[in-house]
């Protein structure tokens, strides 16, 4: 089976899973809206927590994948690893943006302002900038081998950066305390909410894995087609 055919087979097999995850997501929201008690102080606005938190988890997962796959690429120089890192960055970008959009949507009714420099939101904002830089860099380099090398270097440095930004933001907050804006519930999360959150995390992770697989297969297909076209031109 040629690489193009393998990629196409993956696309065909993955597509139904996209539908499945979306259905599961709908199920989780039905549960969240209808079957999970609203939080006392924040009311309905708090429901967005079930989108916001899993998206953040997935964004960081994606980022971790970009970092480790980038390292693997520099060691093994396999171009498919580069395609995988790029796919993870793109999909991760989507989820990071969701976090940054749902944050203010949650914050506005609860606290009256769109944006606060809440620790986690700030960390996510900088993560967003790093992924943006990664994607911009990829777009700015024409030659494929050089693009892969540069992206890998940035991916590795970006992963190293995350813990430092985390420490910076938390140190900043201990010096300049700010209201803890986006807390899910009381001091501990009551049972029913915890279950909904858990389901939501699982469904989002599944959705991410499916999207990643699909995007990676698309990239492999494009690559295989370009190679075939170049070989036809050569012959």
């Amino acid at each position, binding site marked *: 089976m040629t690489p193009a055919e393998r990629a196409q087979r993956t696309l065909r097999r993955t597509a139904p899973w996209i539908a499945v995850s979306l259905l599961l997501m709908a199920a989780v929201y039905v549960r969240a809206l209808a079957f999970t008690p609203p939080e006392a102080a924040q009311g309905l606005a708090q429901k967005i927590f079930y989108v916001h938190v899993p998206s953040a988890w997935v964004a960081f997962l994606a980022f971790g994948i970009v970092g480790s796959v980038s390292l693997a690429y*520099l060691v093994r120089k396999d171009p498919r690893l580069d395609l995988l890192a790029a796919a993870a960055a793109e999909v991760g970008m989507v989820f990071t943006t969701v976090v940054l959009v749902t944050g203010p949507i949650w914050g506005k009714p609860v606290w009256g302002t769109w944006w606060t420099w809440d620790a986690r939101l700030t960390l996510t904002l900088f993560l967003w900038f790093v992924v943006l830089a990664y994607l911009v860099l990829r777009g700015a380099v024409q030659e494929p081998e050089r693009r892969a090398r540069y992206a890998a270097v940035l991916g590795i440095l970006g992963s190293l950066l995350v813990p430092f930004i985390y420490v910076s933001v938390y140190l900043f907050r201990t010096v300049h305390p700010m209201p803890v804006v986006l807390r899910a519930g009381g001091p501990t999360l009551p049972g029913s909410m915890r279950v909904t959150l858990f389901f939501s995390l699982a469904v989002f992770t599944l959705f991410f894995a499916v999207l990643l697989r699909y995007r990676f297969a698309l990239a492999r297909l494009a690559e295989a087609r370009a190679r075939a076209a170049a070989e036809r031109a050569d012959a």
Partner: protein
Amino acid sequence: MRDLVRVAWAIAAKDVLLEFRSRTAFASALVFTALVLAILNFARDPTAVSAHSLAPGALWITFTFAGMLGLNRAFGLERENRALDGLLLSPASRTAVYVGKVAANLVFVGAVEAVALPLFALFFNVPVVPVLGPLVLVIALATLGFVAVGTLMSSMAVNTRLAELMLPVLLLPFLVPPVTAAVQLTAHLFAGRPFSAAFGWLRLLLGYDVIFVAACILLFESTIEE
């Protein structure tokens, strides 16, 4: 090791000599510095915001942006006549090339900072002299981190179409930890608080320098070797 020092020194000396002869980047950075400091002063309401509250941030915005003007020089000057090939053809290790470039950039940024600091003390009327020692230490540590990462980023940015724009896009997220720490430490010093109160920030700065200088040394070869 001695080879590395010899080669890095040769490269740094050559870069400093070239910059000294043309002086364009240095002059632009100085003018930029003076302008930023002056504008920041006018950009506040003097009754609402004291110079002291604005000072640490103003200092570090100035250092960072003026510094970025100079970072692209390091690899930009190797593009004419493909001089970089000359470096790569030679037996010089890629690490020596990186160290030499970082050293040259440190001289450049350091020179800009040496002029900016007194200007800043003048415009913002802050007591710099009593805390000069610790302040210079903070500036040195933060500048090292910023220049180490910036030199690596510029080795990539210089090969993209919009190099001057690409560098800030790549570099700015990486400046958050060192610049935040530097601003906090500087504020501490200007307010006359003891250094020990801000130990967390100092540790952050040191940790950043150690990790990122090491990472950049290891990764540099990948940006330069085709």
